[in-house]
């Protein structure tokens, strides 16, 4: 038990330090910067400095646009494809299923170089849609929705079909409301992944006004190398991590279920 508590404390140390250091006054000096003991008086200066020196407001906005725009497109593509794989029989279904499956291995990060060329060809270089485009189709999301649809009883759809409802009305009004847990699980995994993404946006975005949070933070970290503004760096890191961490603590059960589902089913 003592061992477990020690390991847990060790695991939490980087976060504890971030919290302590980000509220530490600048005058404390760099010698004791590593101390995990909170200082008095606490200060919000580091957050103010971080917000001023990096354009964090803009980075937040860009990240939110990417994450939500991407999610909106993905919800359409994965629901349609998931429905087709779950409910329709057609020639080539198994082959197409494997065509989707392959994306789980040929993950976009491995293909950054050719994908950048494609994004340039499409005229999407240095745009936020260029950051989103490689993820518009999601094999994982398609499987997740397929599993979700398969688990739903067919009775409701059949009743709606007998009443003469067109397929899109059945999907929109009957299936999707029941498939909500699947969509939420997918949304959690997608938002987390793209909130945290770095390498691909780094390659696609050139304009400082279009940078996302992670790119801003990386530039910020390199900037801190020279100076000794560790408190500001800690505050900046906290600003990037906080939104997801807060949502996670609030909806822990849902998060954990989604991530496990993401692994087990896809």
């Amino acid at each position: 038990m003592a061992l477990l508590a020690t390991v847990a404390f060790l695991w939490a140390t980087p976060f504890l330090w971030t919290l302590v250091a980000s509220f530490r006054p600048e005058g404390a000096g760099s010698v004791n910067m590593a101390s995990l003991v909170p200082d008095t008086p606490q200060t919000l200066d580091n957050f103010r400095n971080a917000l001023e020196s990096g354009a964090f407001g803009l980075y937040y906005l860009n990240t939110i646009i990417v994450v939500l725009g991407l999610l909106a497109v993905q919800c359409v593509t994965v629901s349609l494809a998931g429905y087709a794989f779950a409910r329709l029989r057609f020639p080539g279904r198994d082959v197409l299923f494997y065509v989707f499956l392959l994306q789980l291995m040929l993950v976009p990060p491995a293909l950054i170089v050719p994908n950048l060329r494609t994004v340039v060809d499409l005229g999407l270089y240095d745009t936020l849609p260029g950051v989103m485009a490689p993820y518009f189709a999601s094999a994982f999301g398609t499987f997740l929705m397929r599993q979700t649809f398969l688990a739903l009883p067919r009775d409701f759809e059949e009743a709606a079909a007998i009443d003469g409802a067109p397929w899109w009305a059945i999907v929109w009004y009957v299936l999707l409301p029941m498939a909500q847990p699947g969509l939420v699980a997918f949304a959690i995994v997608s938002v987390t992944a793209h909130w945290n993404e770095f390498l691909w946006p780094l390659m696609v975005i050139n304009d400082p006004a279009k940078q996302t949070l992670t790119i801003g933070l990386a530039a910020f970290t390199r900037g801190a190398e020279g100076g000794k503004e560790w408190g500001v760096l800690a505050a900046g890191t906290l600003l990037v991590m906080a939104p997801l961490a807060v949502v996670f603590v609030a909806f822990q059960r849902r998060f954990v279920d989604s991530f496990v589902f993401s692994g087990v089913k896809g």
Partner: protein
Amino acid sequence: MSLAGTTQAFDGIENGSAAKMQPRWRRRLRRRLFPYVLLAPSLLFLGLFTYLPVVRVVVESLHDRPHGTGAAMVSFVGFGNYSKVLADPAFRQAALNNLVYALGTLIPTLVLALAFALAVQRSNRFSAVLRTVFFLPSLVPLVAAASLFFFIFLPGVGLLDYYLAKIGITGPNWLGDSDIALWSVIGLTVWKNAGYYMLFYIAGLQNIPHDTIEAALIDGANAWQRLRYVILPALLPTTSFVVVIALINLLTSVDHVIVLTRGGPSNATNLLLYYIFQSAHENFEIGKAAAATLLSVAVLLAISLASMRIMGRGAQP
């Protein structure tokens, strides 16, 4: 609506029996095409960003195109780029580093993930807090983790050296010493990933029937024997799954390398994807980057094909 109109127009031309056949034939065609219409948006983007890039990379890897020149300067070089890449000491170093990095990360990560899962599987308040603590690192951006560890590894005043000094140990230059830097990066990755894989082990443990463990208890198996002969075999599918996703992750994320070391010192932390990123983005050697991409895609596919049965089973209803 437009379909109905066209059908009527056809009715005028065709003779009676054919006119009756036509709408049914068209309706059936529409029903036949319908699934593909639903799949079309996904297939379009899969084509553009999963399949086209593979074709592109094959073509580019066989050609040479000096930076800043137009399509006219492209020349076919056969396997020239491959021999160039394979002869490049930086590539060899990156491949070797990636192997050390993958194994050096994978083994401790799996052991810790299982240990964490066994420790926190009971549902009480203390376990819930520990689960959160262990899982939280996998929720933060790799870039943010790198920023934190940048300070942790800072020589002299950093978190690690500060507390090591209190117990009288002088730490090495964690990121500046080429013998140690890769292991520092490994340490960061283990911290970041262990909690994520813990979730799968927790789920796996919950799927082990209670009777099995009780039977082992009745037979007088001690804790180690229960782990070795009952729990570990039952967790084998979980382990193989985790190994696959962990390996894919270890080959396709280098955010921390970019922030912390940029592959240095003297290529000690250069990984395959970072080598590719550098060749394409900083040195503009497209052919070389393409050849290296294809080699790493081959590794990814080899891992995946080996595990296709597991993944396929997971995706079946």
